[in-house]
């Protein structure tokens, strides 16, 4: 394996921040904040900040551990080859050390601020992402992102546990929504970036089972996700704002998934590279990928608006 080494400049703080996958961190913080605000109770803003900070740090640690272990794969993919480790600006040992140290600090902070349940859940989330997804599933099975998606789905429940000291149906629903959202989101990306995954030997569904099977699986998961997205309305967690957003978003998601299912997306020549770059046949998959991000964002933004800004008006009494 050849790794392009950029030794033209020493590593900067920005390279180490990039190890933490800031874009993933921001989504994790967003969903965790929604979980925190939606959870019942009144907790000091200091402890709220500490808990959300610990979740963000935990996500960053998991990202660094992922970049440490996956440097060989990242070096082969156009989308990831400029990451700090494969580009040679940060050593593998530094990435590993940073991941482990930040993970320990994150779990310690959570234990201090919010108790052992939240700290245990956070530790489980980091370990699941680094050990189960990154080291075990990612290179072995096309179900990698289905099972591994649990790690990305847990932050709202971690935040809920941090605030209340317990769990229940509502945080479980939020976890299930993200869990069910993950496959269509990543498979839409994998459809138009399949060449990258194939070159790196990552067994994503379009690589192992072809484009048609992937498009069908995307539709199946979307048909499960859309009604699941409405479930918080039934429990009273989501009010009118959430109900409208979830209904419209779910309808849009299904519409795009049907278009992708009926298209030839993922069958032409690949244009792997930039995350949003797609050839003519693949644009529907790219559009679905972008919409999926928007869908999750507005769903949790609705919860934040309802529970954080006082816009909550129940459709059904809690």
């Amino acid at each position, binding site marked *: 394996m050849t790794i392009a080494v950029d030794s033209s*400049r020493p*590593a900067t703080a920005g390279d180490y921040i990039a190890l933490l996958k800031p874009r993933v961190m921001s989504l994790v913080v967003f969903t965790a904040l929604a979980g925190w605000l939606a959870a019942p109770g009144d907790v*000091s803003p200091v402890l709220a900040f*500490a808990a959300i900070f610990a979740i963000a740090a935990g996500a960053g640690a998991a990202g660094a551990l992922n970049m440490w272990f996956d440097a060989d794969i990242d070096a082969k993919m156009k989308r990831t080859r400029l990451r700090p480790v494969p580009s040679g600006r940060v050593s593998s040992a530094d990435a590993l050390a940073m991941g482990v140290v930040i993970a320990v600090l994150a779990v310690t902070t959570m234990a*201090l601020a*919010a108790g052992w349940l939240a700290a245990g859940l956070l530790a489980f989330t980091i370990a699941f992402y680094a050990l189960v997804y990154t080291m075990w599933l990612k290179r072995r099975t096309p179900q990698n992102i289905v099972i591994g998606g649990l790690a990305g789905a847990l932050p709202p429940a971690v935040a809920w546990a941090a605030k209340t000291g317990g769990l229940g149906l509502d945080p479980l629903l939020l976890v299930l929504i993200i869990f069910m959202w993950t496959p269509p989101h990543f498979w839409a990306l994998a459809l138009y970036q399949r060449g990258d995954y194939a070159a790196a030997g990552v067994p994503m569904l379009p690589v192992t089972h072809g484009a048609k099977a992937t498009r069908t699986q995307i539709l199946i998961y979307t048909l499960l996700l859309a009604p699941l997205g409405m479930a918080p309305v039934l429990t009273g967690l989501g009010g009118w704002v959430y109900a409208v957003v979830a209904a419209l978003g779910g309808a849009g998601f299904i519409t795009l998934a049907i278009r992708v299912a009926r298209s030839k997306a993922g069958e032409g020549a690949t244009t792997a590279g930039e995350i949003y770059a797609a050839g003519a046949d693949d644009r529907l998959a790219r559009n679905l990928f972008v919409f999926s991000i928007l869908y999750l964002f507005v769903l949790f933004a609705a919860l934040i608006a309802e529970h954080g800004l006082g816009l909550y008006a129940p459709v059904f009494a809690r």
Partner: protein
Amino acid sequence: MKLSDDEVRARGRRNVIIALALLAFVALVFVITLTKLRDGIVLGPG
């Protein structure tokens, strides 16, 4: 291995950032402890 001037400066900047991050962590633990003492919390908010 002898480091270049650029590398020495970059290492110095990284060391300062690590020191600041550690100080921030210590401050965070201190503030968490004060808050929990003030609110009478023994284990966690729950």
